[in-house]
């Protein structure tokens, strides 16, 4: 059994994801780690960032002294406005999601199943306070739902699974998973390895996850961004 290295850092993974976002896309980066993707998109590439709290063309964090408490992102952090921006109310913002108008969303995950089921809002623990936010709307709404996550939890449990054991966020919604070790597409047969990072091998990934993994590097896949 091959031992996996630590793989890509979060910033490296964010940069890798940014490469796959075509210019002109409308993208929602959820909250947490996926928001790092924004910083990895080159200044001269026009990607339109959507934030669920009512804005398109969100810009980066403000420079010192320019925090505007009326201008925040879904994680409630101060942001800025790019030329071409627009504001709208919450029903219109989620109509953009539910109506299938977002090209890509990038979400974190607790678990992703072979069928593309996503669990990312609740561990199911009895004492946890449940909070869902916009996760379910994003999961069913964006044309492409990408997950950005570590392959394994801190205690070594795989996040890619045959069936989710945590409460679901969405059914069959994930199209691609970017992990620190590899990129996976979800195809009808299950997980297909699209790209390996560092020293990772398909055998090592299969061993670490206990999954049967297809080799998406040699069996050509339909392009499913």
């Amino acid at each position, binding site marked *: 059994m091959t031992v996996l290295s630590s793989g890509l850092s979060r910033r490296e993974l964010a940069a890798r994801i940014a490469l796959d976002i075509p210019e002109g896309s409308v993208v929602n980066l959820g909250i947490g780690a996926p928001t790092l993707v924004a910083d990895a998109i080159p200044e001269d590439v026009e990607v339109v960032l959507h934030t669920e709290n009512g804005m398109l063309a969100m810009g980066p964090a403000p420079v010192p002294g320019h925090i*505007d408490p009326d*201008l925040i992102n879904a994680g409630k952090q101060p942001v800025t406005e790019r030329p071409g921006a627009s504001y709208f109310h919450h029903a219109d913002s989620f109509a953009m999601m539910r109506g299938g108008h977002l090209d890509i969303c990038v979400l974190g995950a607790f678990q992703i199943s072979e069928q593309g089921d996503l669990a990312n809002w609740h561990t199911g623990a009895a004492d946890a306070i449940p909070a869902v936010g916009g996760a379910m709307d994003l999961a069913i709404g964006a044309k492409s739902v990408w997950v950005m996550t570590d392959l394994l939890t801190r205690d070594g449990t795989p996040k890619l699974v045959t069936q989710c054991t945590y409460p679901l966020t969405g059914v069959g919604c994930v199209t691609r998973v970017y992990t620190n070790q590899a990129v996976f597409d979800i195809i009808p047969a299950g997980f297909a390895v699209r790209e390996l990072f560092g020293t990772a091998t398909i055998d090592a990934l299969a061993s670490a996850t206990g999954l049967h993994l297809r080799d998406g590097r040699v069996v050509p896949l339909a392009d499913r961004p």
Partner: protein
Amino acid sequence: MISKVCPSVAEAVAGIEDGATIMIGGFGRAGQPVELIDALLEQGARELVVINNNAGNGNTGLAALLAAGRVRKIICSFPRQSDSYVFDRLYRAGRIELELAPQGTLAERIRAAGAGIGAFFTPTGFGTPLAAGKEHRVIDGRDHVLEHPLHADYALVSGHLADRWGNVVYRKTARNFGPIMAAAAQSTVVQVDRVVELGAIDPETVVTAGIFVDRVVGVGERTWLREGAFVGAADAEGNPNPSAIESRDENR
């Protein structure tokens, strides 16, 4: 002459009954009608049902209302924020009821109430615990669940400017739930930085039309504005802070 302008926040929240269902605008701090919430706290209504995206943060605004034991139940999408310790404590003590809705479903249910829609089928939440017990239907090959409108007795909303008819404009992402809550409540109270002359708001830019508004109250300009222009000098919570600097999120 129509004038919905109230001379004080106390008069703006007068008459709110014990047991009322109250929509409170805002997403985190942005658009939260803090002055109206403070007035409601002072006013004393109890056993309230509150509809808000969150469940309060820090010790002010909605969190203060919760801390005072005035809220029986909260309907929201995201009660778990880094500083939502007031709600956490009440919830764990079994002293507040929670109804959780996906954020877009929450927004659409509020919109449906204002728009007179009896119920709607949405794909959001299908197959998740939040769809448990809800009617299911396959439409055009896709799974949907049936959701019902969320009505309220009152809406407390924070806008930027309003006129005496109750036409309101918002500012940036502070718009969030304000427009849909204003339409969904029996009685809507809007606090704004400044009440302007009728006709001063460009009719093309009105976001909440006066038809949805019952009371308007000016609460003075926010610390980060000067005559409507952004001047900075506030922290992310909106507190005056001349040296307020960057986002506290180290990840950015």
